[in-house]
């Protein structure tokens, strides 16, 4: 069947068609604003970040640390047992040297986004950024430490940790 089809539907447009207004479009820019409640688990997690501490929760059934902190263990499907204090040091699980931002815009200076296994969590990683290092010298397994924002600038958010730097 397909070898006999000569014309496949669809009309590709070029950049020029748009720029020279050869086709008609209707534009709309949403002006929406949301406020997401941090909830019980993340609420405490962020409150502790504001104090310069990383906390997780612990499930005694699967003996696992949950990070970011949450109030229920999704595997055992039960309420967690305790809050646990973790270190603000960790190990690079994986990383990138990124020249792209959120909307695929290009960055002149690369960022080093990484998954960092937090000490005391049994190897659970969180997403964050590494800095104060030559991006091409970052390695998996590299030891890093959190660089906290000054206390008065912290607002109870993941960005209260400014970035992580090699130990």
């Amino acid at each position, binding site marked *: 069947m397909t070898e006999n089809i000569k014309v496949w539907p669809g009309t590709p*447009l070029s950049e020029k068609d748009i720029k020279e207004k050869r086709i008609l479009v209707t534009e709309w820019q949403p002006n929406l604003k949301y406020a997401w409640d941090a909830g019980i688990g993340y609420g405490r997690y962020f409150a502790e970040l504001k104090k310069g501490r990383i906390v997780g929760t612990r499930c005694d059934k699967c003996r696992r640390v949950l990070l970011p902190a949450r109030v229920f263990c999704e595997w055992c499907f039960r309420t967690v047992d305790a809050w646990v204090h973790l270190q603000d040091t960790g190990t690079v699980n994986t990383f990138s040297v990124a020249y792209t931002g959120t909307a695929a815009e290009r960055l002149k200076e690369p960022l080093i986004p990484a998954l960092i296994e937090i000490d005391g969590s049994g190897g659970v990683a969180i997403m964050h950024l590494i800095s104060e290092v030559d991006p091409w010298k970052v390695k998996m397994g590299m030891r890093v430490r959190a660089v906290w924002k000054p206390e008065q600038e912290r607002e109870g958010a993941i960005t209260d940790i400014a970035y992580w730097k090699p130990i």
Partner: protein
Amino acid sequence: MRKVAVVGAGMTKFMRRAQETGKELAWETAKMALDSCELTIKDVDCVVMGTAPDAFDMIHMKSEYLSDGAGAWRKPYMRGFLGGGTGVFTANQAWYHVASGLFDVCLAITEEKMSSCLPHPQGAFVTCWDQFTESPLGTSLLWFFAWEMNRYMTAHGITEREIALVSVKNKKNALDHPCAQLSADITVDDVMGSEMMAWPVKRLDVSPTSDGAVALVFAAEDVAKRITDRPVWVQGVGWCVDTMYIGQRDLYYPKYVEYAARMAYDMAGIKEPRKEIDIAEPYDPFSYKELHNAEGLLLCDKGEAARLLVDGETQRTGRQPWCPSGGALGVGNAIAATGMMKVAELFWQLRGEAGKRQVPGKPRRGVAQAWGDEMQVGTVIVLGV
């Protein structure tokens, strides 16, 4: 459960920007699929729609918007959504609509119009991340793929040059696909020299954003046998979702793809997928993903996919061709439509209708897979004749 066959297929070109609206793309592909098996919309008992995030075109309840182009009015209609896994899942949905005995003929349509989102549809992905612990870091979707590719390469000692061969193979395969957006004859050096997006991901490791639509017609056994002498049977389906906390699983291996594949293989009675599957369409939005997903599909040992690729075993003329269509890297990545494009490719290949893309040796069984959501869902379908 009843036996179900795919009896018809339709597809639009994949393109960076289509003049057609989403409805028009859906209509074109639906009509083409029905025409291909000489059915009319009156023969269709129900319709399923697959289309990825509403944020791409900011049309809320997009499946309702698309419903006239889908031929859905005054029929049972629903949309399934699993992010990038949607395309194959929509085929799975069509299967259970018919296998359950509720309907005899189901029209399955997948549509994507990513170009509406300016300046780049990647921006629409920002709310896919956790809004508390991830998005505030200025997250780019590409970061995730970079982490995973890095982890995969490092775990197995695979090189960037080996992975680049996937792009070379798939873009070349796509030269024979009449709907392809980014087919090309390129070299490993071209990939290695292309713009660094997020190391180790380079521009030519990445599939494009696309507009396009694909449709398939599913029919119960007795109906399928009346419609065509060459039904392509759905032998197995599977899908599985894994943890959203990416820091609590090791990215080097897609376990959820394996679970989905095992579900589909069990249903199909497949014990040795490497021997019993003739062609595969693993999801390849990024070059390493074809290898990563093929390992999850149990088509080779963990870490062995690159060797099969380098040895030419996954070429169209190889022992087990992967992405003979040209895949997302070559044909284009109209998210939901790309997953179903892979199912359509199996349909055409297994009927011997793939034209210049035809895999030699009369393939009898194929597996297609898509992947997505928050990069932790696998959807799988096995077709056979």
